[in-house]
């Protein structure tokens, strides 16, 4: 199989006997061994486990047993997912002292039940409080399109591993944008499902009322295939809804005809670079989306998401801040310490505003099926960069990366981030749907992929001469 094969192609080849799961996994491990020295996407590679799992899949096939829709597909997970036998780092130094996880995260189990093969755990920003993909303990994950640039975070290794061709799919988490930001900077498709859709059991949390998990991939088909394999109620996550799986893959071919698609105006056009607006216009043009809608109070929604994140994060880490403050990434520590000092009524008011805002945005979805917005205000900045020029003014970089993703995850709406392959660097657009309508966002993404408006570009040095 070529390095750039999709998960769907790999699974078909393994199921049909054109290749073996062992051959696919050995090739993935070799690529990781060679390329990850530069990309720094992985913090652990599970060679033995992966090869044992691949041999079991090949044995199943040889014995006529079903091998699953992801047979032999290598995948990796952000290191906040429990992997049996490994401490769950969540990007931190402190968690290295935790005992090894005794069981896999629920979603790891579901993907392996579908035939996929876990090959490792991925670098991430400390405790997921990050939009850059930089990590002071493990070093920065590097963007395969330009290794001097950020992957985006906090699922930075997830972005680097998939965009760099090490694995076709990876899992990440998204509290305020941590799947959609690396998807944008690394030129990938990313799905942040509806809040409560996928089980978060046995993953390290950040902001319980905002945490989502989801996949990153190089094609919409792979995103849907992976997502479908992970759906379904799980009593181990109290937030995971008791709702039957609603497979998205079978509906992809229905395209975007008949769907009412609008572009987010106002807040979502301010503070965006020319590249972000060009990508948005290209996607809107391809879909014939002429209508503009205003998502009301989006700036305030972003502010409220910020307040809830920093205070819930502080509550989560309060004991560690008391006992091991010096072992944090200093930037994360100082944000969490400040979060611990926010007066409680302001947090309650943010949660009240959240319900009001949700009602306003749901009203919008009575007259539209999907809303388009930029994923990030700019393409991948350089690693270590602290400021950015926007609208002719120098602004601090880090707090501005998530301005377009935060108001959306704040109310748990499903989003597919699609990559517009601009040169020299790609940038993403968000396709935002009403709660539980991941299928609509995926159908639109698929139509854009078919018309070649969006694509996950192969990094320059990996292209055939």
């Amino acid at each position: 199989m070529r390095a750039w094969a999709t998960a769907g192609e790999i699974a078909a080849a393994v199921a049909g006997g054109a290749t073996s799961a062992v051959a696919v996994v050995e090739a993935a491990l070799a690529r990781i061994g060679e390329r990850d020295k530069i990309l720094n996407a992985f913090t652990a590679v599970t060679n033995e486990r992966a090869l044992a799992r691949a041999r079991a899949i090949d044995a199943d096939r040889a014995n006529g047993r079903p091998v699953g829709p992801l047979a032999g597909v290598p995948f990796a997970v952000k290191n906040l997912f429990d992997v049996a036998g490994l401490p769950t780092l969540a990007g931190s130094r402190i968690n290295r002292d935790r005992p090894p996880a005794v069981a896999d995260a629920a979603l790891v189990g579901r993907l392996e039940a579908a035939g996929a093969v876990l090959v490792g755990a991925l670098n991430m920003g400390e405790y997921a409080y990050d939009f850059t993909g930089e990590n002071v303990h493990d070093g920065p994950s590097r963007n395969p399109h330009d290794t001097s640039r950020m992957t985006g975070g906090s699922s930075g290794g997830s972005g680097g591993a998939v965009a760099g061709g090490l694995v076709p799919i990876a899992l990440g988490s998204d509290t305020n944008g941590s799947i959609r930001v690396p998807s944008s900077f690394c030129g990938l498709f990313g799905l942040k499902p509806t809040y409560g859709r996928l089980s978060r059991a046995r993953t390290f949390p950040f902001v319980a009322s905002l945490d989502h998990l989801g996949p990153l991939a190089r094609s919409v088909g792979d995103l849907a295939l992976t997502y479908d394999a992970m759906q379904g109620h799980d009593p181990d996550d109290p937030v995971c809804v008791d709702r039957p799986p609603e497979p998205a893959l079978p509906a992809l071919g229905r395209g975007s005809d008949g769907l009412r698609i609008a572009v987010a105006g106002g807040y979502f056009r301010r503070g965006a670079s020319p590249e972000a607006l060009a990508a948005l216009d290209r996607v809107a043009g391809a879909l014939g989306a002429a209508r503009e809608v205003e998502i009301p109070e989006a700036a305030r929604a972003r502010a409220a998401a910020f307040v809830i994140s920093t205070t819930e994060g502080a509550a989560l880490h309060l004991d560690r801040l008391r006992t091991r403050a010096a072992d944090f990434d200093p930037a994360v520590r100082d944000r969490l310490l400040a979060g611990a000092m926010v007066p409680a009524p302001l947090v309650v008011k943010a949660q009240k505003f959240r319900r009001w805002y949700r009602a306003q945005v749901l009203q919008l979805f009575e007259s539209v099926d999907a809303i388009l917005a930029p994923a990030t205000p700019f393409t991948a900045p350089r690693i270590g960069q602290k400021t950015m020029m926007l609208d002719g003014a120098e602004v601090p970089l880090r707090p501005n990366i998530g301005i377009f993703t935060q108001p959306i995850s704040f109310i748990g709406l499903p989003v597919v981030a699609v990559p517009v392959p601009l040169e020299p660097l790609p940038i993403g657009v968000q396709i935002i749907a009403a709660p539980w309508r991941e299928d609509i966002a995926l159908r639109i993404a698929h139509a854009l992929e078919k018309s070649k408006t969006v694509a996950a570009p192969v990094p320059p040095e990996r292209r055939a001469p």
Partner: protein
Amino acid sequence: MAEIESAALDQIVDASAAVLGLAIEPAWKPEIRANLAVTLRLAAMVDEFALPDEAEPAPTFEA
């Protein structure tokens, strides 16, 4: 909520640290204060938005 002065922020940091049992090194303070200033400015945007007394917070408890 008016913009909070630097000295007042220092008082909040010191008092909160005492209440919560957080040992804060002097060198960390400027950054904590800066983060707190940003957070309180954003929180003020939410605070000033009028909502009815009956407004329910987003998370709801199920008995």
